[in-house]
């Protein structure tokens, strides 16, 4: 027997209540909020705390550290005097996490990079879910030829390894500006990685949506609406979509986590966010050559990705539990 209050609360309120009582969900939301706020404060941090421009190369500069003038790029102390190494973490306001190979403050770039990583992954996730909803609902509701055509198209896309597909699309768009009739999209425009990542994950999100719609289209309320002569568009919008919404909500953070990983991978390969802009993937790329001498350059954005993706996955699981009508109130 369901608890009494569960029969009184609306499904959304019930889900919210379950979520509020889930410590994992609360922890995930807190982490995501913290990361988002920190990234939003990137400008403040760079200007007023670190006093740096994280987009300008500054290899020949020096800072005052512990009362001493210190070069950002420090000559190596070897018999041949070969090479220079960027300054490591200072654990002070300037160059807190050290410098990248261009003499830029890693901490400031980490925050700016987080903005792009979050913006791209969130936008790609929303776009992907929207496209997947259209595909899944149309395929599931109309069935027949529409279902066969859309499902086979999804099968074909799904058959291509996701990263290979994303890399192929990215290389084409990064090589030169994209011209769509009168519209030109610059190769460094963030819209490109957003759209590319959204497209490659449509099959991932569309399948469960189609499955949900397949079960809904034979539901009583849909049959009644049809027999009453309600237009198909109205049925889709007023009856199907609200019932698919929980699936979309559950999918959103999971797709966002996947999108973040994809964005990082593309940027790491220099075909996502373009320099001098940053994302966590580009910063890992910057730190690749410094992995032995200045590992923090690669480790810091790597940790940021791990923490954020973990939080998104935990939130996705919690949302699924909270929205699952079969589960009782815990």
């Amino acid at each position, binding site marked *: 027997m369901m608890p009494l209050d569960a029969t009184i609360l609306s499904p959304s309120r019930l889900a919210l209540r379950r979520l509020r009582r889930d410590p994992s969900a609360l922890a995930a939301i807190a982490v995501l909020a913290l990361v988002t706020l920190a990234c939003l404060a990137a400008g403040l941090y760079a200007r007023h705390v670190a006093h740096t421009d994280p987009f300008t190369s500054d290899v020949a500069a020096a800072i005052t550290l512990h009362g001493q003038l210190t070069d950002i790029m420090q000559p*190596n102390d070897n018999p041949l005097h070969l*090479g220079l190494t960027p300054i490591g973490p200072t654990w002070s306001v300037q160059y807190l996490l050290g410098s990248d190979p261009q*003499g830029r403050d890693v901490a400031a770039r980490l925050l700016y990079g987080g903005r792009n990583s979050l913006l791209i992954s969130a936008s790609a996730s929303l776009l992907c879910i929207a496209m997947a909803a259209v595909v899944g609902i149309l395929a599931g509701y109309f069935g027949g030829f529409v279902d066969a055509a859309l499902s086979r198209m999804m099968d074909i896309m799904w058959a291509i390894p996701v990263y290979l597909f994303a890399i192929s699309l990215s290389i084409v768009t990064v090589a030169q500006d994209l011209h769509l009739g009168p519209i030109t999209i610059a190769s460094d425009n963030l819209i490109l990685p957003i759209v590319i990542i959204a497209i490659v994950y449509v099959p991932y999100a569309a399948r469960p949506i189609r499955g949900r719609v397949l079960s809904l289209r034979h539901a009583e309320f849909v049959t009644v609406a049809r027999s009453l002569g309600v237009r198909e568009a109205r049925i889709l919008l007023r009856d199907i979509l609200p019932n698919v919404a929980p699936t979309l909500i559950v999918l959103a953070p999971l797709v966002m986590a996947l999108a973040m990983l994809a964005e990082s991978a593309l940027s790491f390969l220099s075909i996502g966010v373009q320099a001098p802009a940053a994302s966590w993937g580009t910063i890992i790329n910057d730190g690749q050559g410094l992995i032995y*001498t200045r590992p923090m350059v690669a480790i810091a954005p790597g940790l940021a990705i791990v923490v954020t993706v973990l939080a998104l996955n935990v939130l996705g699981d919690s949302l699924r539990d909270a929205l699952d009508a079969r589960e009782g109130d815990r």
Partner: protein
Amino acid sequence: MPADLLPATQYDPAHRGGTLRLAADGPGGTIDPAINYQSEFAQLFTVTYDGLTTFRKARGRASDEAIADLAEALPEPLDGGLTYVFHLRRGIRFSDGREVRVADVVASMRRLFIVHSPTSGSFFGSIVGADACLRDSSHCTLPGVIGDEAAGTITFHLTHPDADFFDKLAFPHASILPADTPLHDLGNDAPPTTGPYRFVSYNPNSQLVMERNPFFHVWNAEAQPDGYADRIVYTFGVPDEAQVTAVENGQYDWGFDNIPLDRLGELGDRFTAQTHIEGLYAIYYITMNTRLAPFDNVLVRRAINYAVNRHAISILYGGTAISQPLCDMTPPGIAGHVGTCPYTKGADLDHPAPAWAAPDMERAKQLVEQSGTRGQHITLIISNRAAEQAMGAYLQSMLTELGYKTSLKAITNDIQFNYIQNTNNRVQIALTDWYADYAKPSDFIYDLFSCTSFHPGSDASINITGLCDPGIEALMDRAGVVSVTDRARGAQLWADAGRAIQALAPTAPLIQIDRVNVVSKRLGNFFTTDLYHLLFSQVWVR
């Protein structure tokens, strides 16, 4: 010189044999010696082909001098420097067994015009009939090169004296090939050789293999000494980072590409005995297209020269131990080096500083404002090598600070140099390097800025800037003529030309560079020349 380093004239047969294993990120392009203009393959050509002259196979400055190779001796100039009569050395055979004949020399000189050798105009444009060959290569007869098979002589008639003619003949483009060599780019099929090695196979996607030329014999050890290794195998597709690791581990003996910045410290610390710093006549510079906006405006070009932080570029190349800021296109050590710096903080064209001190960003921004080009879009073309990518990122940052919307386009190193030369690609600005073909000012000034080096629509247009200034052209011609009889006065005139070029600022010289070589533990007799770097025939692996 350490006792274990032998000059080319003292061959030690005890070290003969084995396979020299080389690695590079990419192949060097066509294997046609008359066409290829990549230092990667020039190194190979110097141990496979010979010209009438060559640069002495010796260490250090001695290697700058052109000496007789397939010619018996360097001829005295006749007719006031307008005629040279070379006597071909007898008894030398190509790797297919045929004897080298006078007809081969004449045909080779004619062929370099027919196949559009990149230096056909800049190096050999002074040969009588060269202008007609340059205009219409399909009917090239080159009457200025006359062979006499019976006498064994080849006579060159020039339209004007050329003080550097022997140096130019020593460059691989003037290699002597069999007279029946096809009159087109040979691509992956190498013609027969005369040097100690011959090409066995070349696959640009994987590797190149060279073996001993069975018909080679030493005729002058300073010109073409015998090789130590029996085989040379060049593997392509090994990225620069991987090259360093592989050489450290003994999988390869040497890697062609520059050592990435992040690996230099490790080499200096742990592989000191295997690491060699080699002095070069080589520079990095920014080339600006004087025929495309915004660089068709001299104010913009000067602004770039003021804005660029040459110390930052030096850091990104690997530090001051292996690079120095540079203000003119002729590096120190070459006659005609200007030696003053008009584009640095506190200096101008009328009051140049003795050396580069610091960038002057304020002055640069003023010039950009005056030019009215602020906000325009610029695409900077770089190669995809690690050092160039780092420098490119800095330059993009600098151009953005100057007020331009700047894109950075990295092109694979195999094709970047040719890509930026072709006017069809409409390259506005590029980062590139220049290694001396010979150690004279004309190679840095005339070749890079003369009207004869500018060929619109061609991948072989070394005057990338498109500058063609009649005043500078006349000054360079005069410097070339005067140098025949008076090298010192000629050097002054070349310096004047260098200053005139500085004023028009078609390029922004950045740094003069040395090269860091890391070799395997087993590689002995480390032997480099100023112009062709590691001499593969003179290092041994056993």
